């Protein structure tokens, strides 16, 4: 009985989220703002497969709903006025769930793999199977890291020699942890994803990446 109820609830959910069912007629241009029309296109027009499966097990539709940071940063096109920036920073700080005590460094070799890998959380026809492979942080997409890796992106600053430059104090570790967990703690509309906050990377993975950046043995800190 319970199972059947679940099945029915699930079926209803599928119908409710079904992409082929646009909910109601398209908004009228004369009476609808661009913003409201845009939200309708994303969430109600059937333009996206909102009922598709996700690795986190929640409906894909939730990925389209913006949180406060995403809303404000969209609104101000990543240049929030000072008071909005301050409010976002404070909010990120409130939501921050710090590891207690000293933060350990993990294994830089694992960190190297995670920094290279762009695998994980992609959905749709080519679905990333996390059972086959763990998600990575794809840091090389945006940062230079090891001086031997030439295929790096330029959206973020170069992190080559990061540990050599900053040393490895608990204060540095805390900052790096925070940047990977949620860079908006420091830079409100950062282009860098909030890897920890979104559950994209686990705490343990973050410590491996920290080791990749800070461990003197890591290629990042070798000439």
């Amino acid at each position, binding site marked *: 009985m319970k199972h059947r109820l679940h099945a029915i609830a699930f079926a209803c959910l599928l119908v409710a989220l079904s992409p082929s069912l646009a909910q109601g007629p398209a908004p009228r241009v004369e009476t609808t703002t661009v913003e409201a029309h845009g939200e309708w296109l*994303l969430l109600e027009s059937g333009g*996206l497969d909102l009922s598709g499966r996700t690795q986190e097990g929640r409906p894909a539709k939730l990925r389209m709903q913006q949180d406060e940071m995403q809303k404000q940063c*969209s609104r101000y096109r990543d240049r929030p006025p000072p008071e909005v920036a301050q409010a976002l920073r404070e909010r990120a700080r409130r939501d921050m769930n710090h590891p207690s005590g000293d933060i350990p460094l993990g294994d830089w070799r694992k960190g190297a793999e995670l920094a290279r890998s762009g695998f994980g959380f992609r959905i749709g026809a080519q679905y990333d199977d996390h059972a086959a492979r763990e998600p990575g942080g794809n840091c090389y997409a945006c940062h230079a890291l090891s001086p031997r890796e030439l295929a790096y992106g330029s959206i973020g600053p170069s992190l080559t020699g990061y540990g050599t430059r900053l040393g490895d104090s608990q204060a540095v570790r805390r900052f790096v942890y925070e940047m990977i967990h949620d860079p908006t703690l420091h830079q409100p509309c950062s282009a860098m994803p909030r890897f920890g906050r979104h559950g994209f990377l686990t705490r343990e993975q973050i410590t491996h990446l920290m080791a990749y950046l800070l461990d003197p043995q890591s290629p990042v800190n070798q000439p």
Partner: protein
Amino acid sequence: MPSLPSSRPILRVLAIGLTLACWAVAGPVAAQDVVGDQRSMLIDINPGELWIQRGEALFRERRGLKNVSLERCDFGLGPGVVAGAFAQMPRYFADARRVMDLESRIVWCMKTLQGFADEDEAIRLRHSTADREADVVLLATYVATQSTGMSFQPRQDHPLERRARDLGEYLFHRRMGPMDFSCATCHGHPARRVRLQSLFNIQDREQAARAASWPAYRIGQGTVRTAQHRLADCFWQMRLPELQWGSDLSVAFISYWTHAARGGVIQVPDLKR
């Protein structure tokens, strides 16, 4: 495996052969401007050119339930006029009562003129696979190349044409998903790169014109791809739900980047990495 029309495997073998040859000539890649180098190496031998003729033949072939060609398809300049039609798209079509990009319009004509149904392979397959070239890709390549060398002049007369562009702009700057990206994160700033791939900047007309120049032969994929395919690819990279081909949502994005390319030169079929 579905049976292949005879000319297609040959076309693919040729294309792969050319690409390999070009890779060999291009030699080892440097960190800077790899795309530019690849492009200039291949400039005289763009395998995408091979899609044009085949696309034209398909365009003129009598097909579908109604056994007619696409020669009466109206791309906005009147039935049968393809010269310069792509240059003014996306545009509003009164018969469909919506703004359409080139690919959507082709499928519209395949349905309404030729009588194809959604289940038919001819329109069900929107992107080419290892086994089969998608008809839409071949047809889009043919029609788009009839505007090669002209400049992008997307229409903005109808309120829905203006709205599609504005929606695209709004959506382009909307940060979303588990990576917090907007399109502008990658395409809203000068000289940004993901790994070695240079990213076009929407604020730069010439770069936007290049970005709007689809279909294009994608070297890395060994086949011709369309604007809809590129857009869905970026959605996938952003970890967003699967974009529905030809949706008003997709047309809004394409409208926005085509408006950003206004006055820039159309270069199709382009050659991209």
